[in-house]
């Protein structure tokens, strides 16, 4: 039997789901000829308040992107606020992906001593994070940045500094941050009641993230031993043997390495593309959002519904970013529709 807090949260999520833009909305926006047309449509959605604050002459894709991300953050934390007990603990860890992304952005900039300011981060209120981002922004290099992460959940990042110095690539730190993040999220999933649907959703997300990481590293011709070290050490359907075979084999042999997992068809689909590397993210993300969409339809009374909702929030933000960017880059409607997650 589900706890009243779970029932309350799922019910609230049902209500929040009605705020989503529909696939028809996305298709209509994809046909738009100017940003103002898109803005007009968004004025009837959750984005209206933020967009309303933006003077019409200042409307551009990068400002709109920040509004979409801000709304995404608000949606994440509104939901977390409504949760209680273990569900809340899980959600608090799940929405930490925003601070993880911001941390990655800071580390990337510090790698080359590039200037980074707050407006380049995803807008995240101080109340939603334990990380002192203003201090991190002022850090002079990666070592100082990681040192400032002591007393936070990411303190162990300092252990990877030597590897980072040896190889000189930030992916080592980024993948380790992902490992810390998913490790915490997975730990909280295991503590939830009725975790079947949520396990599948989060587990497959971990596997897909791992797949993307490993295939990207293969593309960069990183040594197999290092790939295995950098991979996220949590397995759902992607076993360690699969990871080992993926790391040791060629990029083209990835379907064979994935035999016995539900990801064989994805690997085949990726390889079918004329340029597999460029389609990798789209194909893997499509699979992730298909899972979320399936969970929204079939787990309407489970906690998994809440996670599926969060994933779909992310999907909406990404779709909107893609649409506004495509309009700015004069991408054809046909090409744009192929890239949308609908």
């Amino acid at each position: 039997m589900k706890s009243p807090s779970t029932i309350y949260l799922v019910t609230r999520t049902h209500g929040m789901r009605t705020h989503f833009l529909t696939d028809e909305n996305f298709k209509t926006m994809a046909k738009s000829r100017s940003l103002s047309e898109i803005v007009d449509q968004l004025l009837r959605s959750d984005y209206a308040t933020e967009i309303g604050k933006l003077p019409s002459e200042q409307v551009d894709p990068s400002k709109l992107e920040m509004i979409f991300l801000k709304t995404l953050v608000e949606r994440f934390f509104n939901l977390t606020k409504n949760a209680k007990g273990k569900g809340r603990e899980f959600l608090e860890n799940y929405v930490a992906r925003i601070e993880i992304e911001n941390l990655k952005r800071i580390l990337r900039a510090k790698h080359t001593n590039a200037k980074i300011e707050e407006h380049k981060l995803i807008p995240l209120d101080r109340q939603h994070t334990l990380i002192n981002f203003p201090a991190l922004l002022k850090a002079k290099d990666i070592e100082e940045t990681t040192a400032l992460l002591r007393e936070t959940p990411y303190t162990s990042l300092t252990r990877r500094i030597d590897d980072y110095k040896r190889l000189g690539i930030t992916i080592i730190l980024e993948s380790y941050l992902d490992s810390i993040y998913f490790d915490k999220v997975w730990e909280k999933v295991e503590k939830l009641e009725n975790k079947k649907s949520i396990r599948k959703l989060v587990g497959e997300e971990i596997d897909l993230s791992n797949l993307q990481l490993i295939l990207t590293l293969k593309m960069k011709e990183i040594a197999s031993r290092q790939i295995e070290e950098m991979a996220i050490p949590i397995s759902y359907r992607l076993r360690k043997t699969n990871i080992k075979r993926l790391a040791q084999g060629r990029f083209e042999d990835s379907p064979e390495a994935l035999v016995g997992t539900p990801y064989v068809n994805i690997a085949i689909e990726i390889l079918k593309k004329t340029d597999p590397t460029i389609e990798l993210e789209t194909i893997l993300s499509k699979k992730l959002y298909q899972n979320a969409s399936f969970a929204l339809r079939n787990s309407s009374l489970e906690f998994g519904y809440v996670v599926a909702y969060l994933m779909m929030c992310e999907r909406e933000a990404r779709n909107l970013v893609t649409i506004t960017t495509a309009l700015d880059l004069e991408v054809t409607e046909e090409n744009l529709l192929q890239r949308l997650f609908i």
Partner: protein
Amino acid sequence: MSAAGRAAVSRGILLRLREQLVFTKKGQELLKMKRDHLASETNKLLSKLAERNELDRQLMEAYENLKVAYLNIGFSSLDSQAATVNEMGVRVRPRSIMGVIVPEVIMEKKADIGSISSPSAYKAASKLNGIMENLIQLAEAESRLESIAHELMMTNRKVNSLERVLIPGLIELIRYVEGRLEEESLEEFFRAKCVKKVIRGRKK
């Protein structure tokens, strides 16, 4: 150049004019050599410029990949990925080809794109990075060609003016001076004969 109206005629001037002619001819030879060398450099550079179409095609392909990367991860995230790329190191130093100063671009350090974690951004970056060296070489070739073509035109003009105006003028002048000197020596000879004849007549 007309020799008419030139008054001063002497053996010294004739010698100076002959020396000037030899010097001018040597200069003309050197300029011709310079012209030939510059022409062969131009030919070499023209073959390099022919690669431009292929480079344009590659650039368009790279920009298409970049567009996909933008669509996949958005402006802010791509901006963040781009922050991991170290600046490439390029040094421009002057080089002289037959006295023409042309730029020589030396790529000292390639951009390091190893930290880009998004596959589509990495793909776009690796394409652009691969093209960058060729793009720099093309820019160097175009810039060299511009300087060399200008110098070639100037040298050609100089050779033509030497060949068609200055040297024929000098030859004509030398011929004129030689003629005048011959006339003067004949006059002198005739005068001496006359004087001899008058002296002989007085003696008789």
